[in-house]
């Protein structure tokens, strides 16, 4: 049997704390809005294939947004 890695104590504390919060409160803490350059500059975008979307992210978004592939 393969044993699972131990969950770091601070992460476990976070998980336990979140589990005690009702869902509306979790929403309030979790969903934030900050402007993301380029990404937020169009009201609608669609891509035929996921690879088209990934390529567009690679080519158009600032690296620091983290949407580029590793």
């Amino acid at each position, binding site marked *: 049997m393969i044993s699972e890695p131990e969950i770091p104590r601070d992460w476990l504390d976070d*998980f336990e704390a979140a589990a005690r919060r009702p869902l509306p409160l979790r929403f309030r803490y*979790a*969903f934030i*809005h900050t402007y993301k350059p380029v990404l937020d500059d169009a*009201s*609608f975008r669609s891509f035929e294939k996921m690879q088209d*979307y990934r390529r567009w992210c690679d080519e158009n978004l600032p690296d620091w947004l*983290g949407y580029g592939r590793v």
Partner: protein
Amino acid sequence: MAAFEYRQAEEIRDALDARGVRYLFIGKSGAILLGFPDTTQDADLFVDREDANCRKLVAALREVGFELTDDQAAEIERGKDFVQLRNGPFDLDLVFAPDGIERFSDAWQRRVEVEGFPVCHPDDIIASKAAANRVKDRESLPRLRSFRQYWMKKQKER
């Protein structure tokens, strides 16, 4: 654009349910519904791309306030792989073919219900992030995998 609020989540859930749309919360928004403590900006819905389902989806989106032109609606109804909406009351991404998940029906079978919200199983959320392999996914995956371990243990204890 304001942040996605619980009230809005209820509204879109109810509008989608009323039309029988088959969809699942996926990505970090799905993980948050499962209890993952983290932050995100938008909601991600994995939608069954079957024709009638997509038409019902468009009707529900319009009902909750997304201002879709007829051309945009047609693109959603076609079930293009990825649609990003910033023309409504909150930011919403529609994913019809997430990386790492073969078929919608597979994810649907494994889904988890959280207070009426249909959510992808943590294994599917992790699989899609691992397959997408973006910088931001690479950063969040270790903690998400630990959360999956915690969540599975809690499910067994119930």
